[in-house]
């Protein structure tokens, strides 16, 4: 297994954000993490990144414990979310150069140009971050996330601010990375169609607990408690959040 999360729990005072969550991810897998707001998805991702210390439980990545090998593990993984930002006075190129230096890339300019082209933002290279739209910022974040050719990529709602065409390009870039380089991706999103298309396996979180895990069709049948031919994650989501099927 590439990622093993065992009995992960995080409490903030009386509030339990993540409650005894366990799951594993195989190499080369794209796995979706779904759940309503406050379900514990982002907290789980932040614990996997070592940004939040778990109250209890164990996280092992590439066969090493996150608690003791954080730096070594983070060399080979990356993360992005449209909710984090970059220094806004710096240009796109300057921001990406900082991360290229952190990862000690041999040919940083070449790599940055490739990534800007892949996410169709070459024309923004010398623009300050402050002049970009939310969608353009998200794509800069994706360039940063692919900077070190990560073995494991954590993406928190990566297509949140993107228009359908760009979102489609991004999804293709992710699928290409998985096919060509075997990149393992843990993906959170509120777009159920996207998750159905991208992920073979899904973990559904609610109130900090894993309430279902499996393929989209398995989850659909387990939560809706009926036989279905096609996955219906939208209905599953509504059933869980509102307590009723759509």
């Amino acid at each position, binding site marked *: 297994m590439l990622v093993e999360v065992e009995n992960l729990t995080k409490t903030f005072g009386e509030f339990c954000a993540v409650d005894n969550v366990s799951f594993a991810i195989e190499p080369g897998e794209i796995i979706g993490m779904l759940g309503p707001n406050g379900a514990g998805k982002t*907290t789980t991702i932040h614990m996997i990144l070592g*940004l*939040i210390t778990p109250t209890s439980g164990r996280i092992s990545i590439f066969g090493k414990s996150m608690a003791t090998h954080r*730096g070594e593990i*983070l060399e080979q993984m990356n993360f992005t979310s449209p909710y*984090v*930002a970059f*220094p806004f006075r710096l240009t796109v190129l300057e921001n990406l150069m900082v991360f290229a230096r952190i990862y000690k890339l041999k040919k940083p300019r070449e790599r940055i140009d490739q990534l800007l082209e892949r996410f169709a933002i070459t024309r923004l290279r010398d623009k300050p971050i402050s002049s970009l739209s939310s969608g353009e910022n998200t794509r800069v974040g994706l360039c940063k996330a692919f900077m070190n050719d990560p073995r494991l990529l954590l993406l928190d709602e990566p297509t949140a601010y993107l228009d359908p065409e760009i979102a489609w390009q991004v999804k293709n870039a992710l699928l290409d990375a998985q096919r060509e380089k075997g990149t393992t991706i843990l993906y959170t999103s509120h777009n159920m169609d996207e998750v159905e298309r991208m992920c073979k396996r899904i973990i559904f979180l609610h109130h900090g607990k894993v309430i279902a895990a499996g393929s989209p069709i398995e989850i659909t049948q387990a939560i809706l408690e009926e036989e279905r031919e096609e996955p219906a994650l939208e209905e599953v989501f509504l059933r869980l959040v509102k307590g009723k099927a759509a």
Partner: protein
Amino acid sequence: MKLHRINAVIVRHVYEARRNFDRVIDTVWWPVLDIIMWGFFTVYLAHSNRLQPTVVSCLLGAVILWGTFYSFQRDMAVAFIDDLWCRNLINLFSTPLMMSEYMAGIIVVCILKVMVGLIAASAIGWAAYSFDILPWLPKFIPYMANLLFFALALGTAITGLIFRYSTKVQALAWSFAGLLMPVSCIFYPISSLPKWLQAVAWMMPTAHSFEGMRQVLAGQGFSLTHFAWGAGLNVVYFALAIVFFGWIFEKARTRGLLVKQE
């Protein structure tokens, strides 16, 4: 610690300095303005025959040295605040970058900025008021090192507080050094203070540096005692600041504050 990651932090702040006029103002504007204002004051006092020449040197030397101390302490905290304001901390700390590397990078940037301010202020002191700091510099350097060491300890502690309490306490970055001014005895000897405040001043590495500086300018030579006291106190304060920062950083990770900074 990896040099390439420290270098990345330095490059990030050099880019910021190039594009952020506020940082240029911080680096050059205030040290230059201070020396101009105090310079005119010493000119006025000298023309009125109210002062001996050594007192003029003491004032201008003190302005320059205090400027290095204040700038270093402020710039350390402000560099961190810059990353806080633009919500860049998650990006940075989801990479292999370690906190020690981040702080080391910021320290190098602060030293560079202090040097720029020091050179600018010294050049104006020399050109406009005939105060040449260069002959004094070999004897000033140990005291300046102590001032910067203390600024580093304070900057570390203040950065820790900002980590814990976020932008609610960011004003400390600009104001905390001001609290120490009266007991740092920048422009007057420790003996001018009331007895009870003298006890506090003796605990300040800054006060020892300025006492030492005045002895040098008065032709009494380098005071090893003031230097040693300043260095000893600095070791204690720096150790406390590191322990405090380490404790706060772990607390921040436990409480999830690192991802909620704003």
